[in-house]
């Protein structure tokens, strides 16, 4: 009984919010639009269930998720050390800022053509695009995190006898983690945009391809299944990030 009440307090709001979203969708599609081009949620879920049973949805989903994960992880692993170096050493910052400040304004969607020319329509071009869309946000957030460290944190460590390396590992790095996670969270949202756009243009499977096929063959339900899957997937991943940021940053002073 008590657990039920606790669960309700934590998730009740979400449950009601989601329920109202589907209710509004249902009302809009049945009474307001009433067209085959805007199916109600029940029809979409039936279609989703069917596509799950025959494995089609899973195939598209896993193709997109694999691309996002590979590119996102590679982009983060590349971006974090570069961001740390830029935040820690002024010459490195001066040297690399032209790159980050120039390239981050070229949207990854604009790079799709170049990516396809360079890497073909296979996995390489998609992973390149996800890396591209991830790396700059992670770099900029990481560097900002390093510069935001309170000087007194470093000074305290110096006065306690820590070496430069120790200060980097035990003060600068943990103090920057919430910023890194925030950068990764933003990058993840971008990865979704990018992967769908890339798959729309050139791919054999993936949620973006599913949208494209839906348009080609007038499978409106399929389009909505893909859209809902994207929304749910994004929501789940973003929750994971928020949770890990909270776990790290929750121990922080409220200001950070």
């Amino acid at each position, binding site marked *: 009984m008590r657990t039920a009440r606790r669960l309700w307090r934590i998730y009740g709001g979400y449950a009601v919010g989601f329920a109202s979203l589907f209710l509004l969708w249902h009302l809009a599609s049945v009474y307001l639009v009433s067209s085959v081009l805007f199916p109600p949620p029940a029809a979409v879920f039936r279609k989703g269930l069917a596509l799950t049973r025959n494995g089609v949805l899973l195939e598209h989903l896993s193709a997109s998720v694999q691309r996002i994960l590979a590119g996102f992880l590679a982009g983060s692993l590349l971006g974090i050390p570069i961001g740390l170096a830029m935040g820690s050493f002024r010459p490195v910052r001066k040297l690399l800022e032209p790159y980050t400040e120039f390239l981050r304004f070229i949207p990854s969607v604009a790079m799709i053509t170049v990516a396809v020319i360079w890497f073909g329509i296979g996995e390489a071009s998609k992973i390149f695009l996800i890396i591209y869309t991830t790396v700059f946000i992670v770099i900029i957030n990481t560097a900002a995190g390093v510069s935001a460290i309170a000087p007194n944190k470093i000074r305290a460590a*110096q006065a306690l006898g820590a070496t430069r390396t120790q200060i980097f590992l035990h003060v600068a790095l943990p103090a920057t983690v919430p910023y890194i996670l925030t950068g990764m969270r933003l990058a993840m949202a971008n990865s979704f945009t990018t992967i769908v756009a890339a798959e729309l243009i050139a791919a054999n499977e993936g949620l973006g391809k599913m949208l494209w096929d839906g348009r080609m063959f007038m499978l409106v339900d399929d389009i909505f299944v893909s859209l809902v899957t994207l929304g749910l997937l994004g929501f789940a991943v973003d929750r994971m990030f928020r949770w890990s940021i909270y776990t790290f940053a929750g121990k922080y002073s409220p200001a950070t």
Partner: protein
Amino acid sequence: MSLVSFRAVTKIYRSLQGVDYPAVERFTLDIDAGEFFCLLGPSGCGKTTVLKLLAGFEAPSSGEIFMDGRRVTGASRDRGVVFQGDDSLYGWLTAVENIEFGLRMRGMARAERRRRAMRYLDLVGLTGQERKYPAELSGGMKQRIQIARALVNEPTMLLMDEPFAALDAQTRSLMQLELANLWRTTRTTVLFITHDIDEAITLGSRIGVMRAGPRSDVKGVIDVALDGARSRTDDAFIKYYKQVYEMIRDEVAKSIARAG
């Protein structure tokens, strides 16, 4: 020979516009081992600059600082520092992990450093709070962690930069009392920065009054011949208060006039 010796120390800060600001000029002061030295001055007089220089966080523009006969060239664990705000604490570490930070950096074995940290945790009155994170603790408790974190490292001296200035009045009085007791048991040399005359007389064995900045230095030093617990209502306390007040009054007026 004194433990700490400032010899004609000048510190000039340069603003982004390229204007020089001499915070302290030919600052000269000696602090003996075992003293509780309070450096008192109006705001903006360079008190914190003096502490930063002795801590080794900043280098003097000219002049020299000696500690234990050696020239100060950088921060070292023989000078523990307690900062005014709580931004020096490590928010991702618990209270006890913050306290043992210095010992951990030295490579001390886990069990031993935990044992020592717990002893100092008790000493500053934080028994039972060891697993809390700084964000879960009150301002006074956070300052206690800072004090324990500095003391467990067994520094030759403790540098305290207005450590109680951000606390509410009741907590501040309590912390002053506890620090006075702590000092009587440990007899660690302390340089304590404050702008509060009451606080200086409550804690100090000597009080140095600084002139209003810029180009500040020590205007005069007063020996506080009070022993044991001090009460603000004692005649002797009031006598010292008047003496210090006489010395600092003009400096505060100057400081306010210059700031305005």
